[in-house]
């Protein structure tokens, strides 16, 4: 009951004209960014953070804008998967398997609207899951002391590579690099400058927004330049949408699939290190095992479109649970959303729910609103979004670069920050070429200081005894989970990744036949 009244309060906060307009704008921009290959949800949110910040929006409105972008991008990823067989973002990879064959059979419109409905169901169920689960997790989190938090941060970093990670050494490298960057600047506890080399600009530390926009957005521009990949993937003759509304019978036949995979995706999203890509992968393989009796999966089975879409959108909602309740994100995009919160001077975690309930519940209400808007937008306006795929990158990428510069310059007005951003762009490009994941770097720069403060607090409390870190059963449990989470992918990562790739290849082969 208490939850429902909090939720009602949330709707009161979210239902103002300004917030509704922001949610609409966010959904629209997010869908476009998700649809364009090369601009995923992390990129989309990253580019828009400085803007929300410089526009002087309050905490709740900017969160509404950016989470709408996040949900929108999760919806949008499917569009290019279905029409072009090119996933708009990584989680949409599995949607290609049945979506593209459906498009080839002239049922693109049906596939798009069905996947829109599936996305809606997934996100809707996940938002309810968030409401029910997050307060419970908060109760556990209140038992955490500094030592447990230090262990929790380690757990987050150890599992961030995900089960499908191929090289844990590179994940560890990236995390350490990010945390190392966070230690640049004046030490918060003793006031001595560290790693500044006498450069006054560095005394404040490196602004994580500068790092995020450089690493994600600019490195993308460099990748496109390297391949001189300037033309649009689509040409207008290739895109024909066909019949738009799915028939009632089709929806009905897919309903059990959507419900099952939403639940599965949500769980995958909550677990650290799994994230949306794995959510859609598990959903697809699970449904294939369960209902694919005639072997129609991979040849344009509508259920094969509904399953991964419900799964990845549910995972996107699920990933918000640890981010809001513990302040420790489970996926790349929620790491970027954490940056938003920190930039707005909001510290997510158990205290957020008691101290700033208006932010939390306003945000949750906004998720519901954004979800309905996206459903309403995605079915009739799908034609408009498919047009977006015709914009060639040679026009789009300079715009992305320039908007990044505008955003960062708007915050600080300093050329030095812009140059640091370019530096991060180059670093991001090199690291991407070397297959080093960028998300741990971001998370490191975000959480590095909090991690160090908790370590020092824990040890100060125990008068310099380092064994306090493994003193309570809770922290021992967290440390062992971290160890398992780090070692498991070394054993299974290659197998899983190979299977994901293998499956994609198989399907490509069968569509050519």
């Amino acid at each position, binding site marked *: 009951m208490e939850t429902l009244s909090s939720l009602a309060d949330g709707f009161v906060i979210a239902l103002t004209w300004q917030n509704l307009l922001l949610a609409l704008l966010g959904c629209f921009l997010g869908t476009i960014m998700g649809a364009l290959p090369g601009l995923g949800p992390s990129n989309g949110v990253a580019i828009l953070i400085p*803007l929300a910040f*410089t*526009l002087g929006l309050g905490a709740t409105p900017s969160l509404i804008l950016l989470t709408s972008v996040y949900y929108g991008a999760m919806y949008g990823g499917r569009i290019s998967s279905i029409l072009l067989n090119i996933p708009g973002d990584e989680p949409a990879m599995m949607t290609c398997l049945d979506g593209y064959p459906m498009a080839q059979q002239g049922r693109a419109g049906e596939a798009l609207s069905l996947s829109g409905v599936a996305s809606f169901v997934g996100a809707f169920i996940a938002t309810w899951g968030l409401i029910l689960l997050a307060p419970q997790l908060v109760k556990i989190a209140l038992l955490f002391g500094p030592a447990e938090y230090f262990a929790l941060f380690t757990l987050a970093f150890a599992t961030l590579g995900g089960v499908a990670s*191929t*090289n844990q*050494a*590179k994940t*560890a*490298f990236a*995390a*350490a*690099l990010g*945390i*190392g960057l966070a*230690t640049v600047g004046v*030490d918060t*506890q*003793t006031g*001595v400058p*560290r*790693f500044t080399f006498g450069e006054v600009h560095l005394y404040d530390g490196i602004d994580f927004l500068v790092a995020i926009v450089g690493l994600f957005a600019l490195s993308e*521009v*460099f990748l*496109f*330049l*390297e391949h*001189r*990949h*300037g*033309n649009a993937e689509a040409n207008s003759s290739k895109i024909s949408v066909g019949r738009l509304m799915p028939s009632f019978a089709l929806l009905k036949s897919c309903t059990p699939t959507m419900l099952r995979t939403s639940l599965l995706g949500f769980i995958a999203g909550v677990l650290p290190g799994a994230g949306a890509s794995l959510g859609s992968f598990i959903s697809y393989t699970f449904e294939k095992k369960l209902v694919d009796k005639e072997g129609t999966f991979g040849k344009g089975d509508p259920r094969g479109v509904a399953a991964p879409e419900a799964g990845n959108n549910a995972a996107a909602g699920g990933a918000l649970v640890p981010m809001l309740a513990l302040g420790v994100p489970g996926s790349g995009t929620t790491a970027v959303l954490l940056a938003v919160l920190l930039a707005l001077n909001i510290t997510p975690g158990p205290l957020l729910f008691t101290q700033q309930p208006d932010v939390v519940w306003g945000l949750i209400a906004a998720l519901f609103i954004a979800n309905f808007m996206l459903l309403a937008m995605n079915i009739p306006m799908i034609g408009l979004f498919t047009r977006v795929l015709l914009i060639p*990158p*040679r*026009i789009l*990428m*300079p*715009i992305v*670069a*320039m*908007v990044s*510069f*505008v955003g960062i*310059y*708007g915050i600080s*007005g300093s*050329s030095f920050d*812009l*140059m640091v951003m*370019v530096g991060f*762009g180059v670093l991001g490009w090199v690291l991407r*070429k*070397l*297959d080093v994941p960028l998300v741990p770097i971001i998370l490191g720069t975000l959480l590095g200081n909090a*991690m*160090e403060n908790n*370590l*020092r607090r824990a*040890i*100060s409390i125990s*008068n*310099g005894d380092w064994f306090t870190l493994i003193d309570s059963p809770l922290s021992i449990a967290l440390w062992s989970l971290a160890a398992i989470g780090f070692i498991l992918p070394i054993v299974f990562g290659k197998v899983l990744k190979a299977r994901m790739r293998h499956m994609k290849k198989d399907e490509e082969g069968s569509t050519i036949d």
Partner: protein
Amino acid sequence: MSDRIFGAVGLFLALGYAWAALVIEESFLSDAVGPKAFPLIIAAVLGLASVAIFLKPDTAPEWPSLPRLLEVAMAVLAMILYALLLPEAGFILATAVAAAYLTWRLGSSPIGSIVTGCLTSVGIYAVFHLVLGLSLAKGPFGF
């Protein structure tokens, strides 16, 4: 091979970072841990990860040919120049030139890229400055 170089560079980075941590001047008033310990732990993780990458390299990525590498370097140079000249030249002029350069290098025709650059610049100015009221760099002409 790429990963071997990467691992070696990473190891040097870790050593440099550890050295820089060791020479931090401690204040006379410090907590039980001090400002050095945490960076040293991180340096150890960084170093171990680098050694692991060095010993067990992945297959090398496909590096671009020299002309393409030069292309990326030129873009970096253009962006640095943009960052330096932005306060001098003003937003519209600097952005138009930078956007035109990038779209030209991505394969637009010369005239097309000048038009695209100007439109991008004016478009961003209109949306972010005139509509949203963001303060952008003012040049000698006031825009």
